[in-house]
């Protein structure tokens, strides 16, 4: 029972981490290696607005999500647009931005164990005999709702459909009047906001430390590779596989092997099925 409950929670938090990365890659084919940095900076911005400026928690969250969105969009507009289409340069450029943000934060004095965000709700409840605090429950619900919301967004709204079109065939979308640079910028903004949402939901469970930016990046890449790059539904399912695998490892082997699971999942996927679990696009091409 413990495994089931905490496995689900862990999976949802992994899905939250990976969604933004999957979305940006799926639409603009830009592997956003600054994803972890965007996650952390959202935590610190919220912390600053809440603790230093003294805004209410809710307002601080909304503001910092906006900041994150703008940050993501300007990252594309001013830097990545210049290297678009060259995957190695995209990785180097976005990783460099990530490094600047993370190490800049460290340099600016954001280190140590003193930065925490409050949880949404104190207290806990019992699920099947396992104590779970309210915050984790809220996180799981919001996480699942977010995935559902994203699905509705990409299938029923004008912008969402345009993003989907671009993800599948950029040039065909262009012929229909969809501006690919604008859409990639929107996708980048969305990705950054999703990273921010993940941060705000997950960070209150621990301290905000710069190092976890790298951790988040690795986890989101793992989720995306296992799920099939570019497929965010795949990423969601992969999050569950890795999430449960991690919890099982913690219970039966030892908690310090947790990270190995993610890396192992990447390696195994690349050996056995390089297109990932849901990399349908490639498979379809192979069949044709």
């Amino acid at each position: 029972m413990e495994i089931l409950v905490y496995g689900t929670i862990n999976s949802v938090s992994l899905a939250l981490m990976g969604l933004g990365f999957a979305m940006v890659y799926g639409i603009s084919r830009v592997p956003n290696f600054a994803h972890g940095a965007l996650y952390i900076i959202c935590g610190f911005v919220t912390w600053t607005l809440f603790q230093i400026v003294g805004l209410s928690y809710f307002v601080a969250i909304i503001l910092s999500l906006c900041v994150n969105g703008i940050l993501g969009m300007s990252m594309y507009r001013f830097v990545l647009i210049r290297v678009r289409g060259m995957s190695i340069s995209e990785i180097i450029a976005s990783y460099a931005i990530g490094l600047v943000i993370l190490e800049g934060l460290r340099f600016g004095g954001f280190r140590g164990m003193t930065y925490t965000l409050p949880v949404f709700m104190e207290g806990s409840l019992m699920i099947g005999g396992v104590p779970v605090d309210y915050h984790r429950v809220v996180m799981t619900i919001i996480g699942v709702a977010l995935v559902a919301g994203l699905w509705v967004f990409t299938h029923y709204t004008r912008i969402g459909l345009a993003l989907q079109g671009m993800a599948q065939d950029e040039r065909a979308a262009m012929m229909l009047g969809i501006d690919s640079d604008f859409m990639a910028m929107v996708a980048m903004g969305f990705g950054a906001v999703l990273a921010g949402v993940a941060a705000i939901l997950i960070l209150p469970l621990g301290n905000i430390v710069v190092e976890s930016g790298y951790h988040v990046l690795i986890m989101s890449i793992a989720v995306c590779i296992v799920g099939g790059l570019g497929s965010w539904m795949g990423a969601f399912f992969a999050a569950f596989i890795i999430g449960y695998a991690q919890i099982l490892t913690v219970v039966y082997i030892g908690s310090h092997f947790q990270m190995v699971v993610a890396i192992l999942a990447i390696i195994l996927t690349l050996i056995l099925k390089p297109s990932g679990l849901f990399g349908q696009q490639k498979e379809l091409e192979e069949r044709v």
Partner: protein
Amino acid sequence: MLEAKDLMVFYENMLALNNISIKCDDNQIVGVFGANSAGKSTLMYALSGIMLDIQKKEDMAGGERITLTGDVLLQNRSIMDMKPSLRAKAGIILCPERRRLFKESSVLENLRIGGYLATRAEAKQTMEYVMEVFPALIKLKKRLGGFLSGGEQQMVAIGRALMAQPKILLLDEPLLGLSPFMQSTLIRGIKVIQEERNISVIISEQYARPVFPIVDYAYILENGAAVMEGTREELMDNPDVKAAYFGVS
């Protein structure tokens, strides 16, 4: 309405389009015929602006150097430097070679994505119109684009282009690889669409015979140059054209 003047396109030093001047007036169907590598697709890309995107991508990746000279005019205004998305907004919609449907989206979604530039009312009206012109699509609404036959895909592709509210529709080899029956169905559909929506159509094809009955004016390309042009009647009577493009000697 849409006009190309002395259009030249080079891939590195290879001349893909050589001094092409073509013109399509309001409510006209213009045919562009030519064999493989005659420059039909290059012409379509140059008209729709996709060439600029290809040029930019090649340039960034350090690939082929693509040079465009000449001019493309829409209603006597030069659109040579206009991005593809803006040209689409101005009413030039390309329905590309090999259709390029969104394979993982359903037929309905393909059409909806096509309606990006349309208002809600326009999209709804055009959607109904597409189903009316191509009733075969009604029962395929939920099918994924990748699992349609070639003819069905082409219907969706044309429908998708119509959803973008074109003033001038560019069709690049719409009949490629289709059965004669499907070809005539599509050609009839295209004619109906042109008349009922009051749009202009430029249609490129390798083989002239199926398309010829509906064109008002046609150009024949060879190795990137327009070697012949004329109204349908003029070309019909030309013995060289007959031999080369109708298979009659």
